[in-house]
């Protein structure tokens, strides 16, 4: 009976789909009829109300490696800009949109209902989202409701059921085979390149989620976001980071000046955040943001394990520290043993001569 059901679905799908039947069969082959009709991926886009997050484009790259047709869901109180950007990305089959005020703040208590509703209609084999604060909040909740494991912050995909992730603050890589029928995955953005915005015109379908209602026991009050003209930390090509050696919050001005000249983001070690020099959303490390820019300049940062976990995949690491034995020098491509209070002003003075126009 199951087989019959599957073949009916297959016939329906063939009738609807533009894909060649060979392609479709390839997608269907590995399936058992255990409730999942064929391999397909649902990707929940990460966005602000103004823009599509760069993390989404990286998550799409990861999703493509699964080889399944990809449906992207854009949910939120205001989704226009994100949908417009996403529509042009090549390789997405469909965009599902849900615009509702009850999604203000992307409360996980609401998000799980909406994604679950879409999943019940379409039986996805893979549900992915970027490892942002929103994604990390709702996807584990959904995994529990589906009684499957969550595969957190993957950095590699070996096959549709085999993934690579880091454990112990990035000091070990684990390759694991997920044994659940449905794979719920958050993707570490720094491990995948962004899918370029293309010229596609992906079909958009409004998804009338009946479950998108605000819960009675949760009331979103407000958010306070740190305003900055500089690029966003996790997406920046260059990061200038300061640590305890900066001695005070005022001294960070040197780093902001340098960052402005290099169009870089400013980051900080946990020590600098704990000392109150800068707000905690600048923190790079295991417990803060994970970054992997082209250039990471660590200034007055000793290089504790927890900090290295957040930046050691940067392409070029520069360390400026007066302690020649600081562990940061073991990962730095270029190290300058010097007093930062002399070196950084000197860099600020001389850098214009060196910057490529």
């Amino acid at each position, binding site marked *: 009976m199951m087989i019959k059901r599957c073949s009916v679905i297959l016939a329906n799908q063939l009738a609807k789909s533009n894909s060649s039947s060979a392609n479709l069969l390839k997608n269907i082959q590995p399936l058992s009829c255990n409730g999942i009709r064929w391999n397909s991926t649902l990707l929940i886009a990460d966005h602000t109300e103004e823009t599509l997050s760069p993390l989404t484009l990286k998550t799409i790259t990861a999703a493509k490696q699964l080889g399944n047709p990809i449906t992207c869901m854009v949910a939120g109180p205001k989704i226009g800009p994100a949908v417009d950007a996403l529509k042009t990305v090549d390789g997405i089959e469909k965009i599902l949109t849900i615009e509702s005020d009850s999604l203000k703040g992307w409360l996980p208590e609401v998000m799980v209902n909406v994604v679950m509703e879409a999943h019940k209609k379409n039986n996805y084999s893979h549900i992915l989202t970027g490892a942002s604060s929103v994604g990390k909040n709702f996807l*584990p909740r959904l995994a529990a409701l589906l009684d499957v494991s969550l595969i957190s912050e993957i950095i590699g995909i070996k096959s549709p059921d085999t993934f690579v992730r880091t454990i112990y603050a990035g000091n070990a890589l684990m390759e694991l085979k997920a044994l659940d029928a449905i794979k719920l995955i958050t993707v570490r953005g720094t491990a995948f390149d962004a899918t370029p915005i293309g010229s596609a015109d992906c079909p958009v379908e409004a998804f009338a989620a009946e479950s998108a209602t605000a819960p009675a026991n949760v009331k979103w009050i407000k958010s306070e976001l740190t305003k900055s003209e500089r690029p966003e930390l996790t997406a920046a090509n260059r990061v200038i980071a300061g640590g305890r050696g900066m001695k005070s919050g005022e001294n960070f001005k040197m780093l902001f000046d340098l960052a402005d000249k290099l169009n870089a983001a400013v980051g900080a070690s946990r020590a600098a955040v704990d000392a109150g020099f800068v707000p905690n959303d600048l923190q790079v490390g295991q417990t803060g943001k994970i970054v992997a820019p082209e250039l990471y300049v660590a200034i007055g940062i000793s290089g504790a394990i927890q900090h290295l976990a957040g930046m050691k995949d940067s392409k070029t690491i520069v360390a400026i520290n007066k302690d020649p034995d600081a562990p940061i020098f073991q990962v730095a491509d270029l190290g300058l043993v010097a007093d930062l209070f002399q070196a950084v002003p000197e860099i600020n003075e001389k850098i214009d001569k060196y910057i490529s126009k």
Partner: protein
Amino acid sequence: MSLKILVGCKRVIDYAVKIRIRPDNKGVVTQGVKHSLNPFDEIAVEEAVRMKEKKMAKEILAVSIGPQASQDTLRTALAMGCDKALHVNVDEKSAETLLPVQVSKILAKIAEQEKVEMVILGKQAIDDDCNATAQMTAAHLNWPQATNASKIESKDDKTVLVTREIDGGLEEIEYKLPIVISADLRLNEPRYATLPNIMKAKKKPIDKKTPSDLGVDITPKMEILSVQEPAKREAGTKVADVDELLTKLKEAGRI
């Protein structure tokens, strides 16, 4: 408020230890290695104890799931001020593939049985770095979740206002109890257990159970294919001065 709170206490390799990969490449060396209470769980325990000190809470139950040695971490939690403890025993081998998906079911079951109104967990364990148990526990209980909490205030008997750390800043959300909260780093600074309190903790009860007592199946949901060292970075060079640094960065096309 006179809440009953459950706090999760995971025993992990101490954060200051440099881990070593096992020769069979299926895990890391844990034998003879210093373990301690997961730092985020320490923050969770501290917050619960502070709530008790402020008379918001009346009783704190510390729970740890893992091998026999997990009782050491429970003693730490008791010395910090928890009232009683429950150890859910899982042998070393099963503990390797134990994931938030199973741990959350165990915690939810205990929360129901013990009639707690608040569960406070760390935002993530520093060994598996999953960041999922709180969210999953909330799902099983069908309670709201306040993850990455950096501030918890009680508004009235049944309402808490939580400040959460999110990408780019902070947000405030109001929750009706019961609730699951996960502690972020900045929620508080955990106290040190004093010697008299460590002695007193030895007298506090530790109850023992197994996952099957609680009706939770811990069959693995993943297979560890390998655990390896990440690629080593090549040794870098020290430069003599700022000019050399900037010249090299320019040559490399980084500025």
